[in-house]
């Protein structure tokens, strides 16, 4: 009984969100066609700029988190050394760094990527550390017994074992990434969808702001629906014994 009802609920939720997205898309398109003044090309470029920043920051933070987490799992000394430092840095709100980053990196991509990196890195790092610690001991003993060492161990044991946690952390990180990049682009960075929305708002172009938000909603929704959710589904399916 429990399984079909949950399935039904999921199904229903998915139908509702799809309808919502369709409505949003229609409204956005209608607005775009209604006012020829809207600079849609510029808007899409702005969205692409923001997505690119998040993507680059994501790849960097995933790489760095994996590197540090695996090193810290290997060496107790490194763990004892780095963990308190990371704990301290983690408590600095990312946006507080923005003014400082602007001084060093200017108002462009480097600052944007740096700020998103900070917003993503801690979640990724602490999730991966926690998952490595929580791995069943006999599973990693089995990997050792059956000869998994070095790169092969990372590729065929550590990565697959971490994958569900990495996907979950990625979803959270991308959410945080969107939040922070839009805020940063409104406050201190002069390009990207945040800056675009800000400019539109300041020049009183309400429909442009609405269209921008709708397009953003559609993009975020599509990334979740077509990238993260399928990945999440695929990895969790066989992970829990």
């Amino acid at each position: 009984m429990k399984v079909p009802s949950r399935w039904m609920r999921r199904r229903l939720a998915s139908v509702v969100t799809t309808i919502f997205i369709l409505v949003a898309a229609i409204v956005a398109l209608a607005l775009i066609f209604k006012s020829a003044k809207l600079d849609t090309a510029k808007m899409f470029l702005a969205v692409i700029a923001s997505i690119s920043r998040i993507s680059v920051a994501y790849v960097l933070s995933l790489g760095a988190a994996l590197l540090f987490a695996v090193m810290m799992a290997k060496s107790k000394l490194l763990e004892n050394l780095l963990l308190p430092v990371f704990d301290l840095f983690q408590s600095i709100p990312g946006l507080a760094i923005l003014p400082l980053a602007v001084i060093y990196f200017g108002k462009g991509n480097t600052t944007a990527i740096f700020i998103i990196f900070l917003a993503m890195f801690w979640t990724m790092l602490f999730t991966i550390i926690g998952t490595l610690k929580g791995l069943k001991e006999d599973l990693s003993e089995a990997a050792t017994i059956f000869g998994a060492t070095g790169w092969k161990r990372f590729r065929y044991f550590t990565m697959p074992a971490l994958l569900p946690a990495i996907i979950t952390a990625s979803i959270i990180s991308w959410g945080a990434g969107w939040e922070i990049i839009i805020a940063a682009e409104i406050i201190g960075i002069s390009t990207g969808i945040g800056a675009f929305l800000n400019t539109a708002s300041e020049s009183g172009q309400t429909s442009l702001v609405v269209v921008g938000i709708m397009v953003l909603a559609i993009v975020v929704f599509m990334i979740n629906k077509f990238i993260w959710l399928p990945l999440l589904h695929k990895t969790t399916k066989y992970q829990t014994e």
Partner: protein
Amino acid sequence: MVEALRIEKISKTFKEENKSVTALNKISFDVRQGELLAIIGPSGCGKSTLLKIIAGLAKPDSGFVRHKSRIIAEPNPKVTMVFQHFALFPWLTALENVKFGLKMRGLSENLQEKNARQWLREVGLRGSEDKHPRELSGGMKQRVGLARALATDAEILLMDEPFSSLDAFTAHALRQDLMRLRLKKKNTIILVTHLVDEAIELADRIIVLTPRPGSVAAIFENKLKRPRNKRSKEFFRLVDKITKTIRF
């Protein structure tokens, strides 16, 4: 009779913040080539610790394990293991689990596939090659675990209570399979168990350990004819003899 392993005066103490637990105290014995040696002893006497040291997964504080003329201190292709709770990789299918060890040792994809399929057939899992662990029953999982261990070319097979998380019927069937496969593969097997019956049914020799810190309390030769009748007088006599030496 050829010596497969020499366990020489191994001691191991676990130190935690304020207390320390000595798990093994100068334990010594030989393992003969091709025998099935059962190790039996009260809970916490260091049986699992001993197997981990033999596998090279843990380091003894003193003493050593010697295989032929070599000291084993690291995980080693000569030694393989079947785990109490199976320890199958959940993201891999049964076939991929068996292939894992072969892949790590660099066998060609063809050989991996061929050997893995063959060993899954040997343990009676034809048709389940593409199932993931969570789709398998406990008994089937342990069969995969057995196939994974036997598919490697390790001479020494360590088994830490391999049947204890299975129901009685499944455990019985797996014991029979182990006896059958053993004739094929001729591994040297060290089996940890807490069941005297199981030890006598399967083993050529039985080592009884003392309570913690573990050391050898007694060693029994088991000359009963195979297949062993668990209801025979000789069987019961040996059960009594061994049980008397176990202290808790």
